[in-house]
C-alpha cells in the first residue's frame, strides 16, 4: 500500500511538471520579441476601482479586451487587476523581477521613464493631443510625455447631515476650527467625528488635502522638496491634537480609506474627505438617503480650499516585450469616448480626454467637477516621487501619534536622498 502511495505521488508530480512546462511554453515569455504576423498576447495590469465583485474593474477591462479581440483576432489582451492598497508594490515587484507588463493603468512613475522602460505617448497613441493637457506635465519626463492620463477625480469634504443635526450643528464646516468643534460634538454623541485615513493605502492624498489647507504642499513653488516646512509641521500638529482628543477614529495610522468610506456609508462617521467615487458606496450602504449627506469644498485653516487635489491615474506602455504596434492598436481602441464615458459612469470618476470631457460638460453631476479640474493641484512629477510616496504611505500615520517634526524631516531626507 505504501509503495503505491509513492508511485501515486511520483506520478502526480510528473504529470504536474509536464503540465506546467506545457502551459508556460506558450506565448508568455517575458523577453520574447513580438512574433511578427503570429499571435501576440498583451499583458495589461490595471488598478481595481470597484467596491465589490459586481463592479470590479476586471469586468470593464475584460469587456474592452473581448471587443478588441473580435476586431483584431491575432491580438489577445490578458487582464490582471490589483487593488489600490497593493498596486504600487506589485507593479514595482514585477518590474524588479523583470516580469514586465505591456500596459499598466493606475500609477505611473517618472523613474520608469528615466530608466528608458517606457514608450512615449506619441509612440503608442495616434492622437496624444486628445489627452487633457492640464495633466501632461505630471506625466512627462525630460519634456516628453510618458504617462497618459486615463481617469481623473477631485476631492471634496463629505459630511453626514443626520449626525450634524443630532449634535446640534447647523452649518457646514469651513475652517479647521469648525472641523474640530463639530467632530468633538459628534464624538460626544458616540460616533466618529472625522474619518482620517492615514493608513498605507492613500496617506499621501489625505495628508496633501490637509497641507493645502495651510498653504503647504510636498514641494514648494520652485519645485524643491518642502515636506517638513513649518506649515506642514503645524498641520500635522493640528491633526495630532485632533486624534488625541478622540475626535477621529482610533489609531488613524493603520486605517485605510476603503474601510472608513464603508463606515461613513453606514452612518457612523460625521465628516470625511471623499471623491465622487464615494457616492455609490453610500448608496450601496443603504443607511443614508440622498438628503442625509452632502459634499462641500474641503476645509482649510482659515477658509474652504479654492483649489482641490486633482488626482490623475495614468496609463504607461512598456518597451520590454517590443509590442509597440499592438499596444498602439489597443490604446487607440480603449481610449474611445464610449469606453471613457462607460468607465466614468461606472465609477463616478472624471474622463481624461478632451473629447470625452466635452461630451460630459453638460452633465449635471460631472459638469461642476470638470470645471474645477484645470485649477487642481497635483502630485509631484519628480523621479523620486515613487520612493517618497511609498515612505509617506508607510510612515506618515506615525506623525499623529509620535513627533510630527521628526516624521516629516525623515520624509524630507528620503526625498532628497533620491533612489
Amino acid at each position: 500500500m505504501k509503495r503505491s502511495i509513492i508511485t501515486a505521488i511520483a506520478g502526480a508530480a510528473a504529470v504536474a511538471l509536464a503540465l506546467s512546462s506545457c502551459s508556460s511554453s506558450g506565448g508568455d515569455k517575458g523577453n520574447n520579441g513580438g512574433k511578427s504576423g503570429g499571435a501576440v498576447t498583451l499583458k495589461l495590469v490595471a488598478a481595481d476601482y470597484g467596491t465589490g465583485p459586481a463592479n470590479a474593474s476586471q469586468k470593464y477591462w475584460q469587456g474592452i479586451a473581448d471587443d478588441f479581440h473580435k476586431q483584431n483576432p491575432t491580438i489577445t489582451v490578458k487582464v490582471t487587476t490589483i487593488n489600490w492598497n497593493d498596486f504600487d508594490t506589485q507593479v514595482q515587484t514585477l518590474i524588479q523581477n523583470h516580469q514586465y507588463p505591456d500596459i499598466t493603468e493606475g500609477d505611473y512613475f517618472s523613474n520608469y521613464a528615466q530608466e528608458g522602460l517606457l514608450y512615449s505617448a506619441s509612440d503608442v497613441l495616434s492622437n496624444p493631443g486628445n489627452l487633457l493637457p492640464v495633466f501632461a506635465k505630471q506625466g512627462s519626463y525630460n519634456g516628453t510625455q510618458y504617462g497618459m492620463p486615463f481617469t481623473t477625480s477631485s476631492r471634496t469634504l463629505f459630511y453626514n447631515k443626520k449626525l450634524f443635526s443630532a449634535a446640534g450643528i447647523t452649518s457646514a464646516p469651513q475652517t479647521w476650527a469648525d472641523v474640530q468643534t463639530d467632530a468633538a460634538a459628534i464624538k460626544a454623541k458616540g460616533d466618529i467625528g472625522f474619518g482620517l485615513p492615514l493608513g498605507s493605502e492613500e496617506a499621501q492624498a489625505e495628508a496633501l488635502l490637509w497641507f493645502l489647507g495651510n498653504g503647504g504642499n510636498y514641494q514648494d513653488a520652485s519645485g524643491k522638496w518642502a515636506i517638513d516646512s513649518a506649515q506642514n509641521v503645524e498641520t500635522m500638529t493640528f491633526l495630532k491634537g485632533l486624534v488625541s482628543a478622540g475626535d477621529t477614529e482610533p489609531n488613524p495610522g493603520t486605517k485605510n480609506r476603503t474601510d472608513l468610506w464603508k463606515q461613513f456609508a453606514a452612518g457612523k462617521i460625521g465628516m470625511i474627505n471623499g471623491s465622487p467615487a464615494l457616492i455609490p458606496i453610500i448608496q450601496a450602504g443603504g443607511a443614508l438617503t440622498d438628503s442625509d449627506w452632502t459634499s462641500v469644498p474641503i476645509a482649510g485653516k482659515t477658509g474652504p480650499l479654492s483649489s482641490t487635489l486633482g488626482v490623475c491615474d495614468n496609463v504607461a506602455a512598456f518597451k520590454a516585450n517590443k509590442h509597440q504596434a499592438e499596444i498602439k492598436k489597443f490604446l487607440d481602441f480603449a481610449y474611445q469616448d464610449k469606453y471613457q464615458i462607460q468607465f466614468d459612469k461606472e465609477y463616478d470618476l472624471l474622463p481624461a480626454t478632451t473629447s470625452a470631457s466635452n461630451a460630459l460638460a453638460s452633465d449635471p453631476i460631472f459638469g461642476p467637477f470638470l470645471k474645477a479640474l484645470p485649477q487642481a493641484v497635483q502630485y509631484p512629477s519628480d523621479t523620486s516621487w515613487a520612493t517618497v510616496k511609498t515612505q509617506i504611505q508607510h510612515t506618515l500615520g506615525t506623525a499623529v501619534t509620535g513627533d510630527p517634526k521628526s516624521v516629516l524631516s525623515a520624509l524630507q531626507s528620503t526625498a532628497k536622498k533620491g533612489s
Partner: protein
Amino acid sequence: MTAMASGRRTINRRTWAFSLVAYAIAMIFVLPYAEMIITALRPPKELLDAGYLPKHYDFSNFTSIWKTGFGSNLGASLKIAGGATLLVLIVALPAAYYTARKRFRGRTLFLLLVLATQMFQPAAMLVGIQREFIDFNLSSPIFSLILVNAGFNLAFAVWILNAYFSSIPAELEEAAMVDGTSRVGALIRITLPLATPGIVTALIFTFISAWNEFIVSLTLTLGQPAGKQPLTVGINSYIGQYSIDWGHLFAGAAIATIPVIVLFAMIEGRVVSGLTAGSIK
C-alpha cells in the same frame, strides 16, 4: 487490600485529570480553525455582525471562490509542491543511500554541508534568491519556486533518508548482489521497499513545506496572474480588495488546508519517529 484499592483509584483520578486538561488544550488548538470555517460559512450580509455564531449558514463562499481565480492558484500550488517533491525524491535518494553505505572521501564534508544548510532559511537570503532568479530568467516563476522549495527541503530529506538507510543492514543487499544483481538493482528491489516509511515521511514533509511556503512565493510572483501564483499568495491577495474579502479568504484557506491534513494523517504515527531519526541524532 485497601491500600492497593485506593492506589488504583488515585491513578484513575490522575488519568482523568490528564484527559480533561489535554482535551481543553486540544480544543484551544483547534478553536482558531473552527473560527476560520465558521467565518467562511457566514452569509456576506452577516460577515460584520458582532456575534460568536452567524444566524444562518451559507455555502456560497465555497462555490463563488472558484470564479475569483482560486482554481488557478490551486493548480500553481500543485505544480510547485509536486515538482519540488519529485525533484527532492530524484536527488535525495541516491545521495542519502550512497552516504549511508559508502565511506567515500568527502563524506563528512557532504554531511556537514547538509547540516549547515538546514540552518539557512529562504527568508534570510531573500534578496539573493530574488536577484539570482532574475538573472536566470526562467520562463515562469513556477520553475523558480520548484527549484527553491526543492533546494531548501533537500537537507532535511537527505538527513532522514540517511538515517533510514543506515538502519537497514547492508547484508541484505550484499546477499542480493552475490546472486548477481547490480548495486542499483539491490537498491531498488531490496532497500527501497524497506525504507518506504522514511521516504514517504520525507516526501510528505517536503510537499507540505512547499505547499505552505509564503515569503519567497510572495517575492517572486507578486503581480502575476493567478495561474502563476501559489495558494498562499493568492489567499493573501484577498486582503485589500474591497477592504478584505474575509469570506473568500477563509473559504480558500480551508480548501487549501485539506490536502495537508490528508497527508499529515498518512504520516502521523511516523512524525515522532521521523523526528527522532532526523533531528535528534
